[in-house]
């Protein structure tokens, strides 16, 4: 479809013209000419109607949770309640200036303070920082806290243990703290191999970053031994909260011995993913790590009942962003927890675990699981046996689109020999049984097609606004702006610029 730039007509405007009563103020009198651009920056010239139609049309080329099942593993694409959006959008939250005096923002501060307490109870931790903007940002915060802790104790630890099933962000975050990453192999049960772990853990090692249940969807049955191995050698245990949706009211990372956790509020806590954010990656710690949290934190002055920003002190890792956190995401999280209460939270995890095991039970005959055992809130199948029909797991995913589903996560996790050609399915609690039955029947139908009519898969998708994309060409000849395209105009032979859908 046409770019907004291609809909431009000289002279059109899409903004409401402000009234300028300031002819007495002259630009050139106050700013040297050399600091100014000679001509107006060339953007678009379109009307408000053009903009509304353009983006409404664009929206129809997207697929969201409200459109149907979105079973991306480790992403927890659950329903985003409308009341949460309304609460976050309350004018006196959304218009609050971050540097106005604490006296003016007592409501915002109280919400942060109370959310900290709620999250501590849910996860068994002692204190949260609301600053991190995403899961990976939380990981960076967490590993910096661990780093600072050891420096403060005069220890130079430089290695971080990370299971082969971990998200890519774990090793990337550890590298940002200048830790050397040591990969720990998964055992035949799909969980951390205790022997490898105790072999790798030593006095130069910071600790272990663990997702539990892990990315294969399996609870680590060795969690007690794991924490003992790490703590016996003076290390710290990091909890990647991407999969917390399997744990609410069932198991708390704090009780299982984790010292630092990050939570993806945009996963377990129902805040929307927004097409890739903004989310929030709040970090919780045990009391001995509180002095290292990013500064500031919100505190309550008991005598006056007033909330204020408290400097964390000289041991703090410092600031990791401007201002205090992704506040509107915190409001949605707060609203969600209060809506559900303790029973509701437990029911979420329960329903999501039943959903995932149901999908696993119904599909394992058709798509061999990476590990044939009960899973947490997501299950990991594989598309291995369709290779002999010339079918890749990617083809299965693309074919699902023709049936109106968003595909699950594919090719992740990846580790030999158990997890390759993986299809990681996470059907959160907000998916009812009949939706799962539809999905299951579709997956079974696709397995039949793969054997009998593989072309249906390799040519898929056909019912989407576009067909498969040439990703290699995008890298070989990067066109990253409209002006890049204009420069290459003569080389590009597009069939059509308008997507008909």
């Amino acid at each position, binding site marked *: 479809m046409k*770019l907004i*730039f291609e809909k431009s007509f000289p002279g059109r*405007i*899409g*903004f409401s013209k402000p009234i*300028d009563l300031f002819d007495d103020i002259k630009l050139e009198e*106050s700013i040297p000419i*050399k600091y100014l651009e000679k001509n107006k*920056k060339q953007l678009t010239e379109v009307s*408000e109607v053009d*903009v509304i139609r353009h983006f409404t049309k664009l929206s*129809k*080329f997207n697929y*969201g949770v409200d459109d149907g099942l979105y079973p991306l593993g480790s992403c927890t694409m659950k329903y985003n309640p409308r009341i949460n959006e*309304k609460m976050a959008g309350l004018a*006196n*939250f959304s218009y*609050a*200036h971050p540097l106005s005096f604490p006296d003016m923002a007592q409501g915002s501060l109280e*919400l942060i303070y109370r959310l900290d307490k709620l999250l501590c109870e849910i996860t068994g931790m002692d204190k949260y920082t609301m600053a991190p*903007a995403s899961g990976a940002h939380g990981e960076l915060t967490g590993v910096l806290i661990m780093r600072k802790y050891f420096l403060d104790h005069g220890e130079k630890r430089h290695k971080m243990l990370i299971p082969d099933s971990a998200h*890519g962000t774990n090793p*990337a975050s550890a590298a940002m*703290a200048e830790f050397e990453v040591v990969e720990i192999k998964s055992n035949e049960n799909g969980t951390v191999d205790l022997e490898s772990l105790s072999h790798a853990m030593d006095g130069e090692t910071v600790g272990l970053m663990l997702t539990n249940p892990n990315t294969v969807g399996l609870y680590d049955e060795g969690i007690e031994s794991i924490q003992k191995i790490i703590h016996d050698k003076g290390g710290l245990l990091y909890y990647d909260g991407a999969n917390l949706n399997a744990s609410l009211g*069932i198991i708390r990372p704090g009780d299982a011995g984790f010292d630092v956790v990050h939570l993806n509020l945009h996963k377990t806590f129902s805040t929307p*993913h*927004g*097409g*890739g954010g*903004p989310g929030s990656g709040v970090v919780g710690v045990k009391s001995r790590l509180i002095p290292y949290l990013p500064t500031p934190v919100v505190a309550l002055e008991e005598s006056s009942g007033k909330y204020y920003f408290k400097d964390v002190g000289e041991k703090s*890792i410092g600031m990791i962003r*401007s201002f205090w956190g*992704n*506040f509107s995401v915190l409001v949605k999280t707060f609203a969600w927890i*209060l*809506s559900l209460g*303790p029973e509701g*939270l*437990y029911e*979420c995890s329960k*329903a999501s*675990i*039943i959903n995932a095991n*149901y999908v696993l039970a*119904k599909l394992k005959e058709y798509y061999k699981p990476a590990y044939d055992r*009960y899973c947490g809130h997501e299950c990991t199948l594989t598309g291995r046996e369709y290779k002999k029909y010339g079918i890749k797991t990617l083809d299965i995913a693309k074919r699902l689109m023709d049936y109106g589903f*968003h595909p699950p996560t594919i090719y992740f996790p990846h580790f030999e020999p158990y997890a390759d050609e993986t299809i990681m399915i996470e059907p959160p609690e907000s998916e009812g*049984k009949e939706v799962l039955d539809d999905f299951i029947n579709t997956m079974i139908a696709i397995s039949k097609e793969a054997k009998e009519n593989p072309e249906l898969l390799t040519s898929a998708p056909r019912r989407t606004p*576009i067909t498969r*994309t040439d990703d290699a060409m995008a*890298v070989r000849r990067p066109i*990253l*702006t*409209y*002006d*890049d395209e204009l420069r290459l105009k003569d080389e590009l*032979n597009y*069939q059509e*610029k308008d*997507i008909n859908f």
Partner: protein
Amino acid sequence: MRYIPSTSEQQKEMLKEIGVSSFEELLSSIPENVRLKKKLNLPPALPENELEENIMHIVQKNADFYSMKPLIGAGAYRHFIPEAEKALLQREEFWTCYTPYQPELSQGTLQAIFEFQSHISRLTKMEVVIPSIFDGASATAEAVLMSIRLTHKEKIIISPLLHPHYRETIKTYVEPHNIEIVELPLQDGATSADMLKQSLDNNTAAIVVQSPNFLGGVEDIQEIVEITHQNDALFIQVIVEAMSLGLLKSPGNMNVDIVAGNTQSFGLDLSFGGPHNAFLATKKEYIRQLPGRIVGETKDRDGKRVFVMTLRAREQDIRREKATSNICTNHNLNVMAGNIYLSLLGTEGLYQYSLLNFKKAHYLEKELLKSGKFTNPFPYPYFNEFLINYQGNIEELRKRLIENNFIPPLSVWQFYPEEKFRQSLLFAVTEIFSRDELNKISNLLSQ
């Protein structure tokens, strides 16, 4: 529970199909010792109407921010947001979807990101744009790390007029890497080229300068870039007030190497400081060291023009510990917002709004100076924020403004605790103020 469709009957059926007699059986791999044996100690579930009342009760403890126009900016600016943008952002297809890994189901998001990259490229005259890092501070820190990877040098020079939170964030990000950070001393409203010359050496990876700077001042970027390049270092320009891009010379036209730009002013709520958004822009030659996601154009099997996430060999899900950054989820919905905002404003709108910001700020400064209650500590060219010294009691001034429904300006002393700044106020004036309001403010403060 209204967010969980399956009934307990249906769950029982599912458990039967799974082949277990109870839900507990599915949890058998969790050791008994670490299981939670009590109910979470949380308040009981609230019905929706009570939830709303509860949160209304909390928000009422805030000042009436909606009605109070801020005379404070300092990294977060209240601009007018067109209703058309807000309405479009309500489309669930934009906000309930995930990162656009499947291009066949995400062309809406992908094309909008591509358009945003194109918009920012035109505004900055930079060749490549990473559309979304979390905020200006983290984007600046990523730019610094990028400059170290590009130059393999070990020193970073920071202007004292870089936003204090940004300076702190750089220090946090860089701390593990054994990098020397030199913060130039503060002199007046501009970064000192002489001081910079003294600090620059062969081992300098980059110099970081914000323009307009924390005091609103427009820096002589061209001059500092030249000095920087003479020393084979990279120049990072930080833009905190993106509205200034409507008037000020584009970084790309001044040979800036990397731009980190906070786009909160492009259609984003203040939201008590977040979520906002920032872009990173650079030259094509530095593309391999960029952190974060980028969208490119290609063809589909039918030969149609389509958009995909590209140049992904830099990213964490592929490169793991060798990635250029750990960033994964960013602030894409705020990219969507920025793109809609810039589409609505267009060539003429951005220019007019930008010019009005300039005019209104300068008008207020003139009026305040006229009153005799204010003095200008040191003059410098600025965009929409200016520093001014107040002769009277600052506490009184603050009260008077609040009583009259204005959020007071920033006392810069909290960030620059030098005696000369005891009475200094940093005013931000955007297009949202009318001439009458500005007159009212200057009258209020001239009494």
